[in-house]
């Protein structure tokens, strides 16, 4: 059974600081996704990582994938309050378009 684990589960940080969220998974896969969820809202796709060594950046967020280590990271640079949300990673081991298994989520709070 595929397991996807994130850490930390809760992260409180000050504006302007840097931090990294980690996502480990238990089965070989070269497809990993990051989603953002604001309180009471749906999940919004942030990044799609499709190969070993893939790196994607959008604003203050950068995601990377190491398929050999079965590890993805979401790095936050110079955090701002608007980044406060819950971040989920998800892994896909089937054919494209098939089921995703989600991590527990990391609840990020950025304090002024």
């Amino acid at each position, binding site marked *: 059974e595929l397991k996807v684990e994130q850490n930390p589960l809760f992260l409180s940080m000050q504006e302007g600081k840097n931090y990294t969220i980690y996502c480990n998974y238990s089965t070989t896969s070269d497809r990993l*996704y990051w989603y953002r969820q604001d309180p009471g809202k749906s999940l*919004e796709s942030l990044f799609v990582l499709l190969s070993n060594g893939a790196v994607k950046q959008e604003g203050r967020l950068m995601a990377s994938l190491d398929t050999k280590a079965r590890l993805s990271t979401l790095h936050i640079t110079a955090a701002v309050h608007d980044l406060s949300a819950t971040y989920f990673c998800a892994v896909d081991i089937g054919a494209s378009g098939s089921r995703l298994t989600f991590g527990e989520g990391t609840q990020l709070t950025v304090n002024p």
Partner: protein
Amino acid sequence: DAGVIQSPRHEVTEMGQEVTLRCKPISGHDYLFWYRQTMMQGLELLVYFNNKAVMDDSGMPKDRFSAKMPNASFSTLKIQPSEPRDSAVYFCASSFAGDYGYTFGSGTRLTVV
């Protein structure tokens, strides 16, 4: 495109009542997923369809839950009888084979009292 459309947005019902959640996927998407989100269990896959056929419903309590997709543009998730432990946010998502990742609907917040 209006995205994945779910209804209702909120549902409050009494224990024992039947509840039906509805989902309209994005046009052209051939995969449809039903997830349940709770604080304790996180995001759990209940069932998913490919071209209207059930591919995996192992996450769905089959004694009270049923899912259908009578056509490519509509799916339902029915709970009968509902129980307080079914209280959760239910998300529908759709995707297209050959594409990657899902598009999620806004969710239905179900409260069973």
